[in-house]
């Protein structure tokens, strides 16, 4: 909500224009606490799975929270990996909320037992976001892994039972679940939760499945129409502003907030411009550096550069540039498109044409913490036979002759 004086003085600008120059502290800070995860979602934007030995210690994480309190960062969005598998997760959660830093954390539900749910419901400064990418087990588990649908539903039931209201049900929109938007809404309503829809990005392992999972052009229209019809009841993290080029702008800032109002702290303390851009190109610094997080946010050359007014490039002549702003920086980067041109999913079709011309390697995410235990893709063929150069079978320990194996010639 924006509190604006009516009949404002002539120099008043739109909020979005003011935000282009950045804020003294982020509004929306994502903090991934660990790369460890019990799941291996095919589209994981941080390529999570295994813990990184360099992850911030409890004391280092608390020092970050102290900084956030001093900077008046009202709340952080904690994710991972699966943040709740960090042994000190609950300790950090309490520490943050005691220091006036509200926490919204994303989880697949693995640790949301009835006892945990009761504890969460009792803390006003905590919000929970359960991830679910299919309104049916079939659609969800194909992306998030077998059993993950039941796990999320159980977590939501526990939260609802504990009296937690208005927690979030968070869905990444894919080709396979766009048709289920109404069902997602029903699930959220059933548990007293609020539905949150976000965009699939070609980041992390998402790059590997993007071609197969990103919504088709007619599904983007379906999604846009659904958002226009349900906009005030559904959260989007402002992630669909590229769809505004269908016509009426969607609610929200309609601005790429990277380095301006949002950023990411990754598990080892690296600060990136946004959660979808884990690549050296968007690495601004590390919270363990001399200036701490505040130093990175306020002085990193990358962030200062991102806070310059956005140039439209190839998009500046498009009638929809004012609301679409050329779409998502990370989506362009990881599909090999120039940053000052159209989004790969540009609804006017300009991205598709450009994508066809992308040659050679597209940038890969900087880190990969995926589990190494993925099943082998195909059977390994083995032939069992006797070596031709041996006159007799190899001797085994159970051979009784004392001269076994001796070549007596």
């Amino acid at each position, binding site marked *: *909500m*924006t*509190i*604006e*004086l*009516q*009949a*404002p003085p002539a120099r*008043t600008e739109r*909020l979005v224009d*003011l935000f282009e*120059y950045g*804020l*003294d*502290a982020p*509004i929306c800070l994502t903090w991934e606490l660990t790369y460890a995860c019990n799941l291996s979602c095919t589209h994981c934007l941080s390529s999570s799975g295994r813990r990184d030995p360099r992850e911030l210690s409890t004391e280092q994480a608390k020092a970050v929270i102290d900084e956030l309190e001093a900077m*008046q960062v*009202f*709340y952080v969005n904690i994710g991972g990996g699966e943040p709740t598998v960090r042994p000190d997760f609950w300790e950090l959660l309490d520490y943050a909320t005691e220091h*006036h830093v*509200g926490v919204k954390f994303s989880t697949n539900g693995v640790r949301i037992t009835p006892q945990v749910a009761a504890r969460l419901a009792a803390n*006003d*400064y905590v*919000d929970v976001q359960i991830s679910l990418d299919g309104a049916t087990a079939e659609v969800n588990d194909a992306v998030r892994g077998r059993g993950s649908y039941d796990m999320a539903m159980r977590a939501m039931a526990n939260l609802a039972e504990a009296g937690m209201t*208005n927690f979030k049900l968070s869905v990444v929109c894919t080709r396979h679940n766009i048709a289920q938007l109404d069902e997602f809404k029903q699930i959220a309503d059933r548990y007293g939760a609020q539905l949150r829809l976000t965009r699939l990005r070609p980041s992390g392992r998402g790059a590997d499945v993007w071609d197969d999972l990103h919504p088709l052009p007619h599904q983007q229209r379906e999604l846009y129409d659904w958002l226009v019809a349900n906009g005030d009841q559904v959260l989007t993290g402002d992630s669909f502003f590229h769809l505004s080029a269908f016509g009426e702008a969607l609610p929200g800032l309609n601005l790429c907030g990277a380095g301006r109002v949002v950023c990411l702290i990754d598990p080892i303390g690296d600060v990136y411009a946004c959660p979808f851009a884990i690549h050296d190109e968007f690495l601004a610094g590390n919270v363990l550096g001399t200036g701490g997080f505040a130093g990175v946010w306020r002085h990193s050359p990358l962030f200062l550069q991102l806070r310059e007014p956005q140039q439209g490039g190839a998009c500046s002549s498009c009638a929809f540039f004012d609301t679409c702003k050329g779409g998502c920086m990370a989506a362009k980067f990881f599909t090999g498109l120039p940053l000052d041109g159209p989004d790969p999913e540009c609804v006017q079709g300009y991205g598709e044409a450009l994508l066809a011309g992308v040659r050679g390697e597209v940038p890969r995410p900087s880190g990969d913490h995926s589990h190494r235990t993925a099943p082998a893709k195909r059977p390994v063929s083995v032939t069992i036979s006797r070596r031709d150069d041996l006159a007799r079978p190899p001797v085994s320990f159970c051979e009784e002759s004392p001269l076994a194996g001796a070549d007596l010639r």
Partner: protein
Amino acid sequence: MPTATVFDLDRAWDLHPQVSVRPEPFGALLYHFGTRKLSFLKDRGLLAVVQALATAPTARAACQDAGVGADDIPRYARALTVLARSSMLLERSPADDH
């Protein structure tokens, strides 16, 4: 939680105790930890009025303390009404000691 549906300029007001204010170059951010709603004040003058509420006997006096001219007071009253409706502001007894 009591919610003010009507804003009276001649009564004493204050920020809701669960609201934090963060000044920014363009004005300020307000965050309500109870409703988890974020609001933006697009004007430093409005920020000054909001900050003056706690110590002023009435909202009108807070406007005057912040240097708002008589002609501009109705505009500020409308902005404060929006804040009161979203529970960012609460009416307080004028005797409250701050």
